C-alpha cells in the first residue's frame, strides 16, 4: 500500500476511461481500472505503470449485473479516494424505438447501472466523510431530442441522480461531479458526423475530469461552447422544439 491518492475508473477500457486514467495517474494517483474484460485492460495497466510509475489494479465489473455490485464494492482491496463512472452505451435510436430489449439495455447501461453503483460508493464515502464521485453523463440528457431520446432520457435520469446526490452530500466532505462531454472523438462516435468546433479529443475530457475533482466543480461542460448550445436548446419553447428533428 502507498499513501498516494487513488482513483477507480468504471469503464476503464473506453477511450474516455483510458484518457481519464492517464490524467489521474499523471497527477500521481494510483489507479483502479474496472471493466467487463479484465484481460483486455492489462495493456492499459502496463501503459499507466510504464508512463507514470503508479500502482494499477484491475477489477471485473459489469454495469448490467447489478446483483454483483455490493460484492464488487466490498471486494475492493481499499476504498478509492475518487470513483469515476464512464460506462455508457449510445445504442441505435431507431432500433430502440421498436426493440424493447435494445431500449432496455440503453436505459440500464446509462442510468440504472451507473446510478446504483455510484449510490453504493456514496454510502461508503459519506460514512468516511471524504471522496469524489464523478459521473460522465451527456448533453443529450439536457433535453430529449428526436434523434437520440432513448439514450438522452437515460442520461437525463443519471444527471438527476447525480444532482440529488450532490445536494444530499453537500457539506459532508463528499463531492459529486457531473460531466457532460459533448462530442468526443472516440470509438463510440466513430463514423458519426461530428461538428468540428464542438468536438474534443478524449484526453481533453480526462484533463477536465481531473481538474473538476481537484477544484471541486459541480457540473462540467467539457467545451464551454456546449453550455451555450444546450442553454439555447433548453430554452426553446416546446411548440418550436418539437418541430426539430435533430
Amino acid at each position, binding site marked *: 500500500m502507498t499513501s498516494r491518492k487513488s482513483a477507480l475508473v468504471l469503464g476503464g477500457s473506453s477511450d474516455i476511461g483510458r484518457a481519464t486514467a492517464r490524467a489521474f495517474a499523471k497527477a500521481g494517483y494510483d489507479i483502479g481500472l474496472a471493466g467487463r474484460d479484465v484481460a483486455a485492460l492489462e*495493456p492499459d495497466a502496463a501503459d499507466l505503470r510504464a508512463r507514470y510509475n503508479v500502482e494499477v489494479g484491475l477489477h471485473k465489473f459489469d454495469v448490467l449485473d447489478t446483483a454483483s455490485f455490493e460484492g464488487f464494492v466490498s471486494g475492493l482491496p481499499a476504498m478509492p479516494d475518487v470513483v469515476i463512472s464512464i460506462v455508457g452505451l449510445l445504442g441505435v435510436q431507431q432500433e430502440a424505438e421498436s426493440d424493447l430489449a435494445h431500449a432496455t439495455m440503453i436505459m440500464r447501461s446509462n442510468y440504472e447501472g451507473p446510478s446504483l453503483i455510484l449510490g453504493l460508493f456514496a454510502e461508503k464515502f459519506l460514512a468516511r466523510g471524504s471522496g469524489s464521485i464523478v459521473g460522465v453523463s451527456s448533453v443529450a440528457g439536457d433535453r430529449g431530442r428526436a434523434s437520440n431520446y432513448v439514450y438522452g432520457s437515460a442520461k437525463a435520469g443519471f444527471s438527476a441522480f447525480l444532482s440529488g446526490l450532490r445536494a444530499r452530500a453537500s457539506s459532508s466532505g463528499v463531492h459529486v461531479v457531473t460531466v457532460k462531454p459533448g462530442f468526443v472523438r472516440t470509438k463510440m462516435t466513430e463514423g458519426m458526423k461530428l461538428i468540428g468546433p464542438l468536438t474534443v479529443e478524449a484526453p481533453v475530457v480526462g484533463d477536465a475530469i481531473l481538474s473538476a475533482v481537484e477544484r471541486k466543480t459541480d457540473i462540467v461542460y467539457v467545451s464551454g461552447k456546449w453550455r451555450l448550445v444546450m442553454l439555447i436548446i433548453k430554452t426553446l419553447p416546446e411548440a418550436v422544439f418539437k418541430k426539430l428533428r435533430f
Partner: protein
Amino acid sequence: MTLVSGWGRFPVVDSDVLRPRSFEAVGEAVVTGTIARGNGRAYGDAAIGAVRTIGMTGFDRVRSFDPATGRIRLEAGVLLADLIDTFGPRGFLPFVVPGTRFVSVGGAIAADVHGKNHHCEGGFGRYVDSILLRTGQGETIEVSREENSDAFFATVGGMGLTGIILEVSMRLRPVQTGWIRERVVSASDLDAAMRALEASDAATYSVAWIDCAVRGRDLGRSLIYLGEHAVKGDLADDAAAFPAGKNPGLAVPIDLPSMTLNRTSIRAFNELYYRMGARRAGGNHVVSLYPYFFPLDSIADWNRIYGRRGFLQHQCVIPENGARSVLGDILDRVATRGDASFLAVLKKLGQGDGILSFPLPGYTLALDFPVRGDILNFLDEIDRLVVAAGGRLYLAKDARQSRATFEAGYPALSRFNAIRKALDPNGTIRSKLSQRLFDEV
C-alpha cells in the same frame, strides 16, 4: 471513401480510411493497396493508401519503460509529443526529433526522420532497437539489426512499404533538463552560413534559417541556431528542470486566401525575423525545448496559411562536395521567383541508416511554396540541379517528384525493392507515393 491528404494538403485523393482497435483487426483490415498512417504529418502522398489507409494513432500505449537504461517498448501510434510530455519530466527525451513533435513513432521510423543533430548523432532509426512488423504477406515478425536485418534496414526510412509497424523498442536520451542552451550566429550570405555550419560540427544541434527574399550580395543571409542540452547548473536556482509543455495557443481557423503570402508580406516578415534574430546573435541563452525544436507547433494548423490549394515543400540534400554552387543557384532562382516563404532551412546531414533513408553527408535545403501557377515546372527545374549534383529529395515531404528524379537519387532502390518483394510478393502494401514512384505499372 474519404478525401485524404498529407500536411501540405496537396494532393487530395480518395482512400478508404479505417481505424482498427487491435493488431488482429489491423490484419483483417489489410487489402491489396493498403498503407499505415500515423498522425498525417508527411506532406504529400506517403501516408495515403492506394486503396485503404489504416490510421494507427489509436495504438498509443507504452508497453514498458526502464528508467535505468532509457529503453522503451511502445505501440507505433504514440506521438513524440506524448513521449516528450510523459518522459521529459522523468529526465528522458527522444534522441531525434523533427521540426514538429506531432508525429507518431511509426511515422518517424518510416521516414527515418532527422533533427538538428543529424550531422553528429544520426537519424531516428539509429535509436530503434527492434520493430514488430506486420508484413504484406500477413506475417508478424520482429525485425532488428540482428534478426531479419534486411527487413529492419528497409523499414527504417522505407515509407511504410515493408509492412505495418505495430510496436517499437527504442532508446530515449537521458537529460538533466528540458531546456536548451542556444547560441544564435548571424551570417551575411550563403558562404558565411555554410562556414558557420561547418565550424559548428561539434555542436549537438545546428540549423540555419535562410532569408529567401534577398538576392545578390545578401543571397543566403541566415541565422544559425546552435544548441546543447542545458544541465541543471545552467538554470536559475528556482527554475523548473522541465518547462511546461504548452498546447498550441494560436490556431489558423480557416484557409487564408492564397494571396496572403506574397512577395511583400514575405519580405517584410523575413526582414523583421532576421533583424530580431541578429540582435540576439552572439550570446548564449537558455530556451525551452518546445520553441527551440518546434517553433511552428505553437500555431495549430499552420498549413492552412497557404490557402485551400495547399502547398509543396521541396527538401533536397546535396552532397558536400559542390554543394555551395548548387545551393547558390537554387536560392537565386527561388529569390527571383519570390514566393517561397518563411521556411527556408539549411542544415548539415550525416550518413543515413536505412536503405532508403534520405540523409547523406551534405547539406539539406527545405523550401515551402504555395500551390499555384507554374510551380510544378519550376520545381522540376530545381530537381534537375539536385540530380546533376548527386542529390535527392526527401520522400516524407514529396508530392510531385518524377520517377527519374527519384531513381537517380536513390541508387539503393533495387536492393530495397528486392527486400520489399520478399516480404510482400503480392504487392499488398501500396501507397499513393509507391504507385507514383516505386510500383511496377
